[in-house]
C-alpha cells in the first residue's frame, strides 16, 4: 500500500538560458516523508529545488503538488498552495528585523493582523532565541540563528511541503546537527520534506529515501539502510569511477 504523494515530478527538465541544469528528473515525495536530493556542487540540486518552487521555469515534464498540476504556476501561488522554501545561504531579508522577517513569512496568507501576530508568537515558542533577538536586524544574527530564522520564516506560510536547500552550507558541524534535528521534528509534526544536501553522510539518517543527482540527472535512488548508497555517493562525489576503483585504497 503506497501512501498518496504530496509532490510528483515527471520527466522534468529545466535550466537557465541555453543550459539545461536539470534533465528528465522524476521524483515522488509521499505525504509525511522526508526525501533527500543529494549530489556534489553544480550537480543540479539547487535548480531542481528552484524548479519546484517556481523560480526556474520548467521546460518540459509536469509537476503535480497535492493533486494539482502546478507546472506553470508562478512562485507566489505555489507558496500560497503550501510549498515552503528554506533557501541556500540563509537567504533572509538581512536589512529587516527578525520580527519583520517573520511577518513577511505570512505574506502569502489572507489573515488578520492578530492571527499573524499569534503565529509569530508560536514561532518564538519553537525558536526562543528569535524572541530574544526580535528587534535585531536579521543580518546581525549568527549563522545558526539566521538558519533558524530562515526556517521559522518559511514555516509562517504554513506549508505542507518544506524544501531545504543545503541547510549545512557555511555552517559549523555542530549547528548542522541542530538544523537536522529540527527537520526531524518538523517531519514528526506531519510535514513533508525535501532535503537538498551535499553532505550525504550527515543527511542520510534524516531522510526516508533519496535520489543522487549528477550532471542534472538522477543517477541513483536508494534508502538510508541501503548498503550501496554510501559507496555510490563516494564514487560520484570523489570521481572514484571504474577507472579508479583498482587504484590504491586506504
Amino acid at each position: 500500500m503506497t501512501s498518496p504523494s504530496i509532490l510528483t515530478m515527471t520527466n522534468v527538465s529545466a535550466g537557465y538560458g541555453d543550459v539545461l541544469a536539470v534533465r528528465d528528473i522524476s521524483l515522488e515525495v509521499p505525504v509525511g516523508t522526508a526525501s533527500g536530493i543529494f549530489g556534489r556542487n553544480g550537480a543540479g540540486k539547487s535548480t531542481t529545488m528552484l524548479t519546484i518552487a517556481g523560480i526556474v521555469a520548467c521546460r518540459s515534464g509536469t509537476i503535480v503538488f497535492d493533486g494539482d498540476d502546478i507546472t506553470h504556476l508562478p512562485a507566489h501561488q505555489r507558496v500560497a498552495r503550501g510549498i515552503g522554501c528554506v533557501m541556500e545561504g540563509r537567504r533572509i531579508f538581512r536589512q529587516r528585523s527578525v520580527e519583520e522577517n517573520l511577518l513577511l513569512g505570512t505574506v502569502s496568507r489572507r489573515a488578520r493582523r492578530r492571527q499573524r501576530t499569534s503565529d509569530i508568537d508560536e514561532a518564538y515558542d519553537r525558536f526562543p532565541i528569535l524572541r530574544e533577538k526580535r528587534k535585531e536586524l536579521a543580518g546581525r544574527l549568527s549563522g545558526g540563528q539566521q538558519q533558524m530564522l530562515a526556517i521559522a520564516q518559511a514555516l509562517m506560510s504554513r506549508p505542507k511541503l518544506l524544501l531545504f536547500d543545503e541547510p549545512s552550507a557555511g555552517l559549523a558541524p555542530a549547528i548542522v546537527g541542530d538544523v537536522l534535528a529540527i527537520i526531524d521534528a518538523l517531519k514528526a509534526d506531519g510535514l513533508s520534506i525535501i532535503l537538498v544536501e551535499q553532505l550525504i553522510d550527515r543527511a542520510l539518517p534524516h531522510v526516508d529515501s533519496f535520489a543522487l543527482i549528477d550532471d542534472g540527472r538522477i543517477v541513483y535512488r536508494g534508502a538510508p539502510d541501503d548498503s550501496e548508497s554510501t559507496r555510490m555517493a563516494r564514487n560520484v562525489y570523489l570521481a572514484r569511477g571504474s577507472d579508479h576503483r583498482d587504484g590504491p585504497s586506504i
Partner: protein
Amino acid sequence: MTTLLSGLSVGALFALVAIGYQVVFISSGIFNFAQATLVTLGTFLAYVGVVTLHLNPILTILMATAGCTIVGLIEERVAIRPLSGKISRAELVTTVGAAALIEGVITLIWGSTPLEVPFFGSTSVLTIFGGRIVPDSLILIIFVIVLSIALHVWYKYSISGLASIAVAEDRVAARLRGINVGRRSIIAFAMGGAIAGVAGILVAPQTYAVSNLGDTVGLTAFIAFALGGSGSLLGATIGGFAVGIIEQEVARYVGSLYVNSTLYVVLLIILFVMPNGLFGRSTARAL
C-alpha cells in the same frame, strides 16, 4: 524667514517628485524619469477641474489623482513590463520616452502657454514665524510632511509596505515568500501616479500648468533623490526641502541665474563624496 518658507514650498514640489521616484524605485528598481511629467499632467488636470469644468476641489483632486494613476499604470504596462524584469539601460530609454510622450500629448491638447490655475481656498497671505507664505504653499508643505511620514509608516509596519521593501532587498527571496513581484511593480507605478496627481493640484497655483514643467523639476528632484539616498523616503523629503532652500537662498543672495549651477555643483559633490546619500543603504544598487 520668507525666503526659508518659500524654499520649503519650492522644496515641497521637489520632495513630492523625489518621493515618487523612491516609491517606484523601491518596488521595481526602476528610476522613473516620467515621474515629474506625471506631476505636469496633474497640474493640467487641476486646470481642467478648476477652470474648465468648475468642479469643486474634492472632485478635482479625485479626477487628477485618478487620471495620473491611470497614466502611471499605462506607463508600467507599455514602457516597463515588456522589458520583462531585465533592468538595464533600456529602462532609462523607455521612461524618458514615456516622459516625452506624456509631455507631447499635453502640449497637443493644451498648447505650450502657461495656464493659470487658481487655488481653491483662501488667497490671503499668512504670516508665520515672521515670514510670509500663501496658504496653498503651506498646505503643500504640510501635505508633503504628512505624506512622507504616512508612507514611511506604511513601508515599515504594513504587510503590503514590508513586502515592497522585501522586493527591493531580494527579488528572488521575496518571490519564495509568496510575494507577487509583478503586482508590486504595478502598485508602485499606481502610487507614483497618485502622488503626482495630488501634487499637481497642490503645486499648480504656484507653478501654473505649463507643459515643460517636468523637465527642470524632474532633474532638480533627482538631486533631492540623490541627496536623500535611494530607498529612503524621509531622505527624499529632507533632500527635497534642502534643495528648495538652497535654491531660494541662492536666488535671493546670489541671483537666480546661479541657482542651477549651484545645484549642479551640489549634485556632483553628493555623487562623488557620498554616493549613497544621507540615508541610503550602502547596498544601493543604482548609484
